[in-house]
């Protein structure tokens, strides 16, 4: 694929802005790690070597029971115990656990203790547990994956609606524009939270988690496209008045050709510069809803839910602190990327006085 020389120049400029470029790389690596997160944070073993055979529980479609490894129960093998067991009896068998040997939904209750429990390296709860004895690090890790996937879908859908509406309003103008503006003014004033709560009460009790998340996503998108539509409307107005549009019209281009071949490519800078900010606002909005208890259905791992627990349990400072640090780091990285993209598309050269 050959890129437009202008695009290449912009990419080069983006790369030269170190802070934003490295932020993007760090975020990308992080996200890639969470996508194959089962290998890093999981309560299933990576590898069990038992009686000379190697087993890979994570990639095994069924489950291995305790009996498969010489234990006396028929439920799924508890790999952490298995590890200790092999070590104790000193056999050649061994277990390799992931870096963090806990799942995001797994509850690690121990006799005589009342969770939340503080961070402990010995137990490999590196950031402690929450009030339901679930590992905080595992929940933060998978919470990041959920938040990123959610927010990417959020950006894609609300941009699609916003760009289509804004373009139509700017291009056709007149009554379309006027009606659209009035509608958007009304629409953007309706409290989002109100609809989220109503939708929740409408949800049938047996609705699946996927369906609940999709509904939440759609409601949030339905209220977030307005800003993009305003921007696109102005941009389309500006582009439509330029001569190249008139020229292509004279040459016989139809509305669709003008819109998709001429106007949209010329307004792409607005779309691109807006992506990081929209992604950040998606993460923030989702966390806020989770914090209020109206977001993702439990027990989906989420940052907002951790924050909520943390504010309830002030005696467990590790919950709020670790969530805060992770969330601020991610959002700051996103902001750096956004700033760098903006600068790459719209470089300002300043003269300074000495």
């Amino acid at each position, binding site marked *: 694929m050959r890129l437009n020389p202008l695009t290449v120049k912009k990419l080069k400029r983006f790369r030269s802005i170190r802070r934003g470029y490295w932020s993007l790389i760090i975020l990308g690596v992080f996200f890639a790690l969470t996508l194959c997160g089962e290998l890093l944070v999981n309560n299933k073993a990576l590898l069990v070597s038992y009686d000379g055979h190697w087993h890979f529980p994570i990639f095994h479609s069924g489950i291995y029971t305790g009996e498969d490894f010489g234990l006396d129960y028929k439920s799924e093998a508890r790999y952490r115990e298995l590890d200790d067991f092999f070590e104790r009896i000193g056999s050649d068998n061994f277990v390799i656990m992931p870096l963090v040997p806990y799942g995001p939904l797994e509850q690690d209750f121990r006799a005589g203790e009342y969770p939340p429990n503080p961070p402990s390296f010995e137990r490999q709860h590196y950031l402690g547990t929450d009030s339901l004895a679930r590992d905080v690090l595992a929940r933060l890790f998978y919470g990041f994956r959920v938040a990123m996937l959610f927010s990417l879908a959020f950006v894609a859908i609300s941009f699609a609606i916003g760009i289509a509406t804004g373009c139509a309003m700017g291009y056709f103008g007149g009554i379309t524009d006027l009606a659209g503006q*009035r509608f958007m003014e009304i629409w953007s004033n*309706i409290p989002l939270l*109100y609809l989220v709560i*109503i939708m929740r009460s409408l949800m049938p009790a047996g609705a699946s988690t996927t369906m609940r998340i999709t509904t939440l996503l759609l409601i949030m998108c339905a209220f977030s496209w307005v800003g993009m539509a305003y921007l696109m409307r102005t941009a389309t107005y500006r582009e439509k008045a330029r001569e190249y549009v008139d020229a292509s019209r004279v040459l016989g281009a139809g509305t669709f050709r003008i819109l998709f071949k001429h106007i949209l490519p010329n307004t792409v800078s607005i779309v691109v510069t807006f992506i990081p900010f929209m992604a950040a606002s998606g993460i923030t909005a989702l966390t806020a809803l989770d*914090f209020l208890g109206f977001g993702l259905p439990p027990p989906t791992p989420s940052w907002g839910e951790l924050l909520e627990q943390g504010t309830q349990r002030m005696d467990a400072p590790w919950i709020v602190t670790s969530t805060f640090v992770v969330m601020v780091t991610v959002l700051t990285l996103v902001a750096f990327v956004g700033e760098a993209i903006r600068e790459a598309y719209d470089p300002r050269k300043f003269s300074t006085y000495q």
Partner: protein
Amino acid sequence: MRDYFIRRFLLIPPTIIGITILVFFIARIMPGGPLEQALMQGQMIQQMGEGRQSARLGEGSNITSRQREQLAALYGYDKPWYAAYADWLGDVAQGDLGKSFRYQIPVWQMIRDCLPVSIYYGLATLFITYGVCIPLGIVKAIRHRTWMDTTSSILVFAGYAIPGYVLGALLLLYFSFDLEWFPKRGFIGEDFEGMTLWSAIADPDVSALRMMGSLLWHSALPLCCYMVGSFAVLTMLMKNSLMDNLAADYMRTAVGKGMEFRKAVVKHALRNSLIPIATGFGNNISLFLTGSFLIEKIFNINGFGLLGFNSVVDYDYPVVMGVLLLSSILLLLGNILSDMLVAAVDPRIRFK
């Protein structure tokens, strides 16, 4: 220009009607409203009273149809939704926002009760934010690319990325619970609750200074959270717009003809770079009052935002409508105010 603003003002009522009619309609057609909740509660109370005997109720409840009608009339559900909306609108036109379903007190009284808190936080945030951001932005622009600019940029970006309520949770944790430097929740100390500033000044037992002290002590942490969001945007706006102007030809001329740099900045560049700052000012008017219910929730401040949030959660529709009405009027007025300010500070801009 005048005609433009008159037209803008005339557009407010239809927009308000559009917003309220939509929300009213949704509230009415959705299940789980106040009527159903009241019916369910009544049923539960009856069942508890009569023990297991009423378990035979196949057809539903022991509430008679007459009682049901009374309840419906109480909540205004005896009419179709458009008639009920017309009633509501008529009452609003006469200055009556109705009564809260839940607390049975007038909505206007509930809103009025939380206004002092919201106005206090709104004003304080406004003053501190503008008071800090404009000087900081100026310094950052003049000292562009020095260590001071770079470090403060990182702080500003981190501040931009932190949602206010998340910071609130952290501050509460460390400064209120661990160190106990600040009170945990609430707007003002218990000794002063229910007092207005005026009655405190008049009352010789309570020193007004002590009351102000208590107020500041209680509001220090929430104010940090309110500020953290708007802080970054305003500082960067100020910096960038001043940098644009510093690079402008008229500045080079001024410095070139021998004007002192400091003087040139204050007299020429600064004035021009305040234009974009003025643009955003009008939006403060709605922020000001509605604030952030998340911050209010964390610190348990009974402000306007929390009132709106609680009413939505409780399905208290008269309060929902009242809060919505007030906040959307403020938002629309704020937008117009912004445009007016832009036109006022920049004579080149003409609205048609």
